């Protein structure tokens, strides 16, 4: 019987790439580590502080420490706030005055009986158009002092910027920036309370405030994507109230870190570019009698 002996250098070692596919290709968190002598491996978050590893009968088994799936998978969910999604709002100032229509202009007033309902329509990443209750667009005058008017006027392509606003919504506060002949300016109001692009704030010196407080009539945000976590969820399953007995309202939600058993076929590792793995959470929510195990 003859055999050949092949000697591989360290650089012939290829890092194994793992993947996990359930609903879609959920991305595992990992960092490629490359050493200067060209050996490289993929450092998976799931394998940090691992407890045990075994290669046995064409299977690879990895027992991790206690982890939340948040640390194992990349979070791919993104939340789009108003400005990226459409919505309708009321606006008020930091001093509690409401924005209301005043003919074809808008002004801020205390105890306004009819608040201006403004609909935000995104047209670009952070650029929006604003519309009144009646679907009339808000347009900034081309000339100083840049009064904001509700008008159905048709603007030529080079004037479209007058109906476009850069919206920023941070920490419950909203600003609207528009372009003018003199550069970007914020929508604000002066002594006469009329809405114009004349915002003037300098740190704590607020001459014409341009921060507005929105009250949402529609949803303010929308989250899309994969948000991995290991939650133990308790539903209302006792007689707390008849209402809750009829719904699936969550009573309690706790993050439960568990050991994970990660397994895959070793033949896949050598055969395929990416190796599909299975992840099993090594924890049960049920007691030996089959009832829910309380966490407290």
């Amino acid at each position, binding site marked *: 019987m003859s055999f050949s002996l092949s000697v591989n250098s360290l650089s012939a070692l290829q890092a194994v790439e793992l993947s996990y596919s359930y609903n879609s290709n959920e991305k595992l968190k990992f960092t490629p*580590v490359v050493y*200067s002598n060209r050996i490289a*491996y993929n450092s998976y978050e799931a394998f940090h502080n*691992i407890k045990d*590893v075994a*290669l046995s009968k064409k299977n690879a088994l990895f027992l991790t420490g206690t982890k939340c799936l948040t640390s194992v998978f990349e979070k791919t969910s993104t939340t789009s706030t108003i400005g990226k999604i459409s919505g309708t709002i009321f606006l008020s100032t930091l001093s509690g005055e409401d924005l209301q229509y005043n003919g074809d202009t808008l002004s801020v007033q205390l105890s306004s009986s009819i608040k201006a309902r403004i609909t935000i329509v995104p047209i670009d990443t952070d650029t929006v158009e604003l519309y009144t209750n009646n679907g009339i667009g808000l347009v900034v005058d081309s000339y100083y002092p840049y009064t904001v008017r509700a008008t159905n006027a048709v603007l030529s392509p080079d004037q479209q910027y007058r109906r476009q606003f850069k919206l920023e919504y941070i920490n419950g506060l909203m600003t609207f920036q528009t372009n003018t002949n003199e550069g970007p*300016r914020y929508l604000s109001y002066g002594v006469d309370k009329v809405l114009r692009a004349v915002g003037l704030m300098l740190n704590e010196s607020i001459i014409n405030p*341009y921060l507005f407080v929105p009250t949402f009539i529609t949803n303010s945000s929308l989250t899309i994507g994969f948000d991995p976590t290991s939650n133990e969820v308790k539903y209302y399953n006792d007689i707390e109230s008849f209402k809750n007995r009829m719904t699936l309202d969550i009573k309690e939600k706790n993050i439960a870190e568990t050991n994970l058993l990660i397994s895959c076929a*070793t*033949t896949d590792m050598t055969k395929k570019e990416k190796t599909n793995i299975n992840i099993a959470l090594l924890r049960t929510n049920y007691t030996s009698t089959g009832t829910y195990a309380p966490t407290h």
Partner: protein
Amino acid sequence: MNSTLDLIYVRSVPSTFSWDDGNFAVDTTSIPSTQTLNGKQLYVGYAPITQILANSDVYNYNPGASYLVRATDFGDYYNSSTNVLNVSGSAGVKFRHAYAMPGLYSINISNAEYAYVDSLTWNEVTIENNPALVWTAYTGISATTLNGQTIVPNVTALITNDTASFMISVVEIMPTAYLSSSISFNFDDIIFPLTVTLTPRYTQTGSFPIEKIVWDLGDGSPLITKTRWDGNTGSPFISSGALSADLLDPRNFDIIHTYNKPNNSVFSFYPSITAYTYSTGSSDTCSITVGPIQSHLMSPTTTSADEFSLLQTELNEDGVVIVGQIGTDVGIWKTQ
């Protein structure tokens, strides 16, 4: 009536002004007008303070004049509380105004001389230059009816009106963004994964304070925004307190970021910041180089964190699977 309407001076902060310096004193030298715009003298000053002092003097009154109105419109809606001023009286008047925002402003000053006209009746009124017309309506004047005649009392008539106009251009001094890192100057210390502190603290203000800094860490991670009023002083920011007199300033917030070796052959990153000013949203961007970053040398004798030990191997028909331990981590390799 003869009158004098002129600008005594136009002064502003110097072109080297920085909001951070806290010195808001204007230059005592008046800015000369070196050009005209729309037939008006144009003066150029700098934000956030360009001051004007206008003078209105009247002499040789019309004997029939009842009163004078000196009016000025600074054309400044950013500061609408003192934008339009009307002053009565015959004494000389000086109007002061300070412009904060950049822009082109038109200043109009006027002296108007008015006379009271005694009570008159409809049939006494004729239309100047066209007597055939009959005055049949009026607005804005309270009137009474006496013996079937409508009487309009205390009407005032403009006798003379002198006006003067000037233009003021207020220019913004732009901010200058600076970004620096804690990266070592010793090339051997710059190794993946590299954790660096990035700080915008040396960013300089111009006319206006910094309201917002947008971070691009240069490794494909999402943009990060720090706004003065966002209330976020925690992750991912580290408060450096570099500007201790103003702890809300976004330049106080550093970011500690770890650069990992990407799959491609990138060994350097170019993080950048864009600093935006209050009110005008003017901005400046800068970037720095983080790198070139080296990789570790894997060896059993290097640091314990990189110490490698073989755990297990398995041979199958397509190659060998190798599992090894590196520090507290596990690596999986294959040969084909």
